[in-house]
């Protein structure tokens, strides 16, 4: 059984350890299949170019899913209560991305925390921005 992070062990201003990962085209295709988003823009460079895109892109839903998994890898499974995201730029696969978050607020009554979350590229460009609420132990 995975352990939930304790509310007392977290402080406002804490930054989560950044997770870097190489996002391959095959991973994006696997998500598109499992996520019910099998479309040329997410699976095939040529098909995506025909839609005016620079090549196949990562579904926004996948970016959101990666952020959710990143948060729960730190806090424990089933701790995510809310996640809001804005997709600001195209996340192109076959490159390294970084998943990041920082604690902005603690709420004692509900033992929950608010975080800023973002997905960024190698040079720090933020392609997905958002906020999240986690319920801690």
């Amino acid at each position, binding site marked *: 059984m995975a352990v939930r992070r304790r509310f007392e062990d977290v402080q406002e201003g804490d930054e989560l350890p950044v997770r870097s990962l190489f996002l391959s085209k095959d991973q994006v295709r696997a998500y598109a299949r499992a996520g019910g988003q099998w479309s040329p823009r997410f699976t095939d460079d040529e098909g995506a170019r025909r839609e005016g895109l620079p090549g196949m892109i990562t579904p926004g839903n996948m970016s959101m899913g990666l952020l*959710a998994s990143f948060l729960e890898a730190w806090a424990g499974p089933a701790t995510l209560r809310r*996640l809001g995201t804005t997709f600001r730029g195209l996340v192109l696969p076959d490159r390294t991305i970084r998943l990041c978050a920082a604690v902005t607020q603690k709420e004692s009554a509900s033992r929950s925390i608010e975080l800023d979350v973002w997905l960024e590229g190698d040079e720090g460009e933020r392609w997905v921005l958002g906020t999240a609420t986690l319920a801690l132990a």
Partner: protein
Amino acid sequence: MPLALDPAIIGQEFDRTVEGPVTAEELIAFARALGETHPEYTEPGPGLVAHPTFCVRFRGGRFYPEILLKLIDVRSGFDAGKDIQLGEPIRPGDTIEVCSTVHEVYEKTGRTGSMIFVVIRYTLTNQRRETVAVVDNRFMHR
């Protein structure tokens, strides 16, 4: 209100669709595609539940109400973001009722011109009438 829309459209339900039942295989494939390793999301058995973002798979039977389809070319749109509020976990065997409403329509002007944002709210309920998620899907049209 942009697009000369009747404000009464806001909050109106335009679709109600039941999807599922959800299978364990679907839940596991979804979680593994995200690189998940928590057994709650990846191992078959009585403790299996959906990854928290599995709820974004449910999009109902109609993308927009008819009145919006007359004014907006859906193909011109891009997913601009989502807000999900999670309730009860989704489990294998669940059927999910998706109730779709127009939550918000607004216009923004940026460097590249005017953009219309349409927010569709999907309220997802399981067969026990428990809310599993409320998903606000924000679509942007140029």
